């Protein structure tokens, strides 16, 4: 299968007036054609920063400090903003959590879709309206011509999100990055939207990078899963392997902290409980890589280690470097 996206050793730094901090580090993964890869983590894990870095949309105080982002063998990190603009929306498109801020409130839905088609010069002007109507019906609107003439403010949250998907697929992108695409929506609408994206992906061999905090969505829609914690991938595997045999205590903690309907537990297990329970890693499971004890500073480098075929887990390696302070 063709490798669509290949991220190697990505490092992203953010700077404030005083200092620079690492937001994402040692992140490597690939997305193949027709594959849904989920990036799961909690707030601050670096999952959204990773997606912004891929799209070249980091905020002003962020920069890519190292690594490569190859899209069909082209390193996106090296491209100018102008070159990037040709790829964004055309070859890679993005769906954000909040459709309200992603849509222009003063422009009718139809015009916004047509504008994207014109920008990338995909359709002659005369045909673009027909194409916009076709896209609106693909995303499940029964009355595309009504929606075409409506403003975003006239639509419900789920309808706006569907309009956004219509725009995201309008240029037939090869990769769609969906950053919490349904977090703001009701469960019944969430299912419709994700089924829609999944169906589109299957028909067109589009790749999806799904960024989410929700293990339920991962288990329903992802082919492979990357668990992020504090800017790093701590576990990576195909979805069946990960749910059958989660290894990293953070992954286990996250899975056990979700209430499930078939599950009779009275109390949920939290990530913290898990860290205490699995203290066998010399109590350093969630410890930072650099830690001090009795005036001695230890560096414990970590690495992703393959525990079974295609299943990688980040461990602290045995090699410890000691430096006195």
């Amino acid at each position, binding site marked *: 299968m063709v490798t669509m996206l290949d991220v190697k050793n990505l490092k992203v730094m953010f700077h404030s007036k005083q200092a620079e901090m690492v937001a994402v580090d040692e992140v490597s993964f690939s997305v193949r054609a027709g594959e849904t890869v989920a990036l799961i983590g909690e707030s601050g894990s670096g999952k959204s920063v990773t997606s912004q870095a891929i799209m070249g949309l980091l905020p002003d105080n962020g920069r890519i400090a190292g690594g490569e982002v190859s899209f069909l063998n082209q390193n996106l990190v090296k491209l100018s903003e102008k070159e990037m603009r040709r790829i964004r929306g055309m070859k890679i498109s993005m769906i954000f959590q909040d459709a309200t801020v992603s849509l222009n409130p003063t422009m009718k839905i139809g015009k916004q879709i047509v504008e994207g088609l014109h920008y990338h010069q995909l359709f002659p002007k005369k045909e673009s309206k027909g194409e916009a109507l076709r896209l609106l019906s693909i995303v499940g609107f029964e009355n595309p011509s009504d929606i075409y003439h409506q403003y975003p403010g006239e639509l419900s949250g789920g309808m706006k999100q569907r309009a956004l998907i219509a725009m995201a697929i309008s240029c037939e992108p090869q990769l769609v990055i969906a950053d919490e695409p349904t977090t703001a929506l009701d469960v*019944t609408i969430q299912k419709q939207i994700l089924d829609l994206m999944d169906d589109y992906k299957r028909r067109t061999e589009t790749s999806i990078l799904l960024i989410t905090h929700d293990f339920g969505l991962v288990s329903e829609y992802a082919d492979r899963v990357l668990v992020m914690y504090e800017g790093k991938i701590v576990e990576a595997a195909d979805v069946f392997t990960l749910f059958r045999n989660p290894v990293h205590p953070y992954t286990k903690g996250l899975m056990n902290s979700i209430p499930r*309907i078939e599950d009779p537990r009275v109390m949920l297990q939290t990530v913290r409980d898990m860290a205490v329970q699995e203290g066998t890693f010399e109590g350093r499971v969630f410890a930072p890589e650099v830690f001090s004890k009795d005036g001695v500073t230890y560096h414990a480098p970590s690495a992703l280690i393959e525990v079974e075929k295609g299943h990688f887990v980040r461990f602290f390696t045995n090699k410890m470097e000691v430096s006195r302070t």
Partner: protein
Amino acid sequence: MNKKLVEIRNLSTQFKKGANIHKAIEGITFDVYEGESLGIVGESGSGKTTLGRTILRLLTPFHGTIQFDGIDLSSMDAKQLRVWRKDFQMIFQNPYESLSPRLKVGEIIEEPMVIQKMLTPKERTNKVYEMLENVGLPKSAYQKTIHEFSGGQRQRVAIARALVMNPRLVIADEPVSALDVSVQAQILNLLKELQTEFNLTYIFISHDLSVVHHMSDRVGVLNKGHMLEIAAKNEIYQNPIHPYTKSLLASIPKVNPMMRGLEAEPVEVPPQPPYPPHLIDIGNDHYVAADVIEIQNYRMNKQVHKSES
């Protein structure tokens, strides 16, 4: 079963928007028993927040009664209500909006006691420290302001404030929706511990069916301002009758990739009638707005299950 703490009868709340009247909730009837946890699930616009606020009389109902321990709250004015306020408290989704950013955490927790003129200042301070301990916050939290805390810790402060008056009823409106899953688990565990410790009665409002299932003894389903079905948790999750309840349950993502493709057939939800439904008691403490055929189907299925087992 325990005694009834709250009896809601035919409750309606309306909002006027220019010449339009928006019926946020209409014809809601249910009971809450002492010491239980009643879950209310609904999607956005279902009226679940309005329902919670009306029961606590933060809103004035247009119609219907709210009996709290035998006393009718629905027609009381603000002054009469003040005496009762300490008995029912609310926990909101976003503690940053519901708690003052200017006050110290200690003052936030103490404030309800000051308003109710309870205890001496020294006793109040001790009570605050006791509450901080109950919700798992360090003593040092007293002197801090709310913005120094993470989302989960803020929600702990909100819980301490709600419980400091020893309320009998606590309405929690999406208390964990803004939190990360690992923090969410901590807060849910805390709410359960405190319920046992202080013998609290909860109305737990959420859009998240898994969270409601975890927290509740009984569950009511709200849609577009109407209560459609209410029953014991296992009964409603295993034998839902109303098509809307079925469609909600079918939409929950399964946290197990092996169950992909085993989904139930999508459910056709008929348009909701404009008038509030009359809930039919089908036994087993299960009330539902359903037509005769749906109920017959349900009974037949039950019989089949019985004869099989």
